[in-house]
């Protein structure tokens, strides 16, 4: 039998893989892209030490953000704390760059944008939009503070459009993959469930078929005798045979939707024996029954056999789910008190005699 992968677990695995991919993308960008630009333009900065400090702050923000997203979707406060630190560091680094050369020497905007994507990826899309808008405003603010160099401004607008577009696209792509992973996991789950249902149905079908074949040997000859007139319906023996076959047919029809369970099958087997003796046996269940361990089952079926052997013409067996266990009861026309086997293995047996009718209950407690 296959084990069903819980849907959340399966789609969770895909989501984690996408998250890891984004972590690598952001870390790679900051180390290689931003770090490379920082070292390359080392002589041009007013204070290289300050730029390095901001680069480190950004690296810390990315590390914190990565830890957050690898532990699940971050909450509002931690996600935005990281985003705001990244934005503040990039704005400070840009403001400290020499005016008029920002396009060439600024390393920080890209890293800040990707950090925002990293922590806001699985939060509402509008949050990421707000962050990217705030970053665009910060870029513009620094430009205005620097005195609006026309060439710089044009270049920055182009870079901004490109990078914001790329960041939004990555975020949208991951979301689409999340949805697809969820659907794939859902489909896999329903396929597994269908397969298990089919397997169970096959077991039940086979069991019913076997019983149907058994009926061919017992009910069909009786019907044939009745039709041929060799069996007389006025004869008490024939009437009992008819009652027994009718009970077995009824049970066959009623068993259609039962899940096979060991105790149920063992009680059926005991009932079969009694039926051959001419006792009409009914078996009914109420509620979803717990699995009963082997030793306790033996105590219950021993009681069943004792009672069914003593039954004269009819018996009813019921199995009911009760608080923390199962109550198996027997009502049969035994005529007199039946000595029952000893209780034990967590099974308590009680009985009551009313005239010729015996009631007995074997109650198994899981605790």
């Amino acid at each position, binding site marked *: 039998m296959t084990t069903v992968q819980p849907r959340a677990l399966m789609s969770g695995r895909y989501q984690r893989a996408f998250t890891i991919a984004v972590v690598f993308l952001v870390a790679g960008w900051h180390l290689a892209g931003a770090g490379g630009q920082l070292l390359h333009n080392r002589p041009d900065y007013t204070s290289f030490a300050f730029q390095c400090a901001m680069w480190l702050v950004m690296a810390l923000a990315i590390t914190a953000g990565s830890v*957050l997203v690898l*532990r*699940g*979707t*971050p*909450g509002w406060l*931690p*996600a935005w704390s990281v985003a705001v630190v990244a934005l503040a560091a990039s704005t400070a680094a840009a403001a400290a760059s020499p005016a008029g050369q920002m396009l060439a020497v600024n390393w920080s905007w890209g890293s800040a944008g990707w950090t925002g994507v990293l922590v806001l990826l699985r939060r509402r899309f509008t949050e990421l939009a707000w962050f990217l808008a705030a970053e665009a405003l910060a870029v513009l603010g620094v430009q205005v503070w620097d005195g609006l160099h026309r060439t710089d401004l044009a270049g920055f607008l182009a870079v901004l459009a490109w990078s914001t577009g790329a960041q939004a696209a990555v975020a949208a792509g991951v979301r689409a993959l999340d949805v697809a992973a969820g659907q794939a996991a859902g489909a896999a789950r329903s396929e597994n469930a269908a397969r298990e249902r089919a397997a169970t149905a096959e077991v039940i079908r086979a069991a019913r078929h076997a019983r149907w074949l058994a009926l061919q040997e017992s009910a069909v000859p009786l019907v044939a005798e009745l039709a041929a007139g060799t069996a007389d319906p006025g004869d008490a023996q024939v009437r009992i045979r008819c009652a027994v076959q009718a009970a077995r047919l*009824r049970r066959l*029809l*009623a068993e259609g*939707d039962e899940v096979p369970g060991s105790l149920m099958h063992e009680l059926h087997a005991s009932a079969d024996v009694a039926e051959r003796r001419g006792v009409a046996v*009914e078996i*009914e269940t*109420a*509620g*979803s029954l717990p699995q009963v361990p082997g030793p306790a089952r033996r105590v219950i079926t021993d009681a069943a056999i004792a009672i069914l052997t003593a039954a004269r013409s009819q018996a*009813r067996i*019921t199995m*009911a*789910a*009760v608080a923390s266990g199962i*109550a198996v*009861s027997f*009502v049969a026309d035994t005529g007199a008190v039946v000595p029952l086997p000893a209780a034990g293995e967590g099974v308590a047996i009680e009985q*009551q005699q*009313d005239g010729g*009718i015996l*009631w007995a*209950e074997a109650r198994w407690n899981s605790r």
Partner: protein
Amino acid sequence: MEQPVTVAIIEDHPVVTEGVASWIRSDPGDRVRLVQTARDLTGLHAGPAPPADVVILDLELSGELVTTQIPDLVAAGYRVVAFSGHSDPAIVMETLDNGAHAYVSKDEGRDHLVEAVLAAAADRPYVTRSQARAILADQRPARPALSEQERQALLLWFQGMSKASVGRRMSISENTVRQYISRARAKYAATGRTAPSKDALLARAIEDGVIKPGEIMPYQSFARTQPIAPAWVPRAGE
């Protein structure tokens, strides 16, 4: 002598109709009079006026379950006793929820059908063993809260004891056993969808002293009986 209760049978197998008719005829007090038989619901509506007091309804007509038609029958003023080969607890529950007075499985017909019809005509509860089974198996969140005594009486009745034996077992009178079982049934009339038949059953139960108005709760309050398991797990960082 009281007027006999009039009954209509809706059943698509003539042999079953014939069997039910013979149970009605063999009632020693002639308390029930069969006034109409039909093979489907359209046949019933085409029948004579005034309509029968009680309809014995086979739940499967021409291969289709007709439990969803019960509210219409009830709205038309019939009291419905379902008579079916389906003893699946979910179907029994749906039948009662839709406003049927009682449910009798085909195995129980001989012993219980006429009595169930008479009880339905008087708007009194009638609980067969298959109905007790469905109540015991009920796990729906909106099920009514049953007392320990009601549950035990239902269990012993389902197991196959006579009501007198149930009384001996529980050290109470047979009458009290009937009261417990009827009260459990009446609680079900107070839950689920509304139907005039359920109101009538409940009103009669209050009148008969089976249940007090204060004991009728629309549904079980889980907060009172068991703690609610957390349905969500807080996410990291939240």
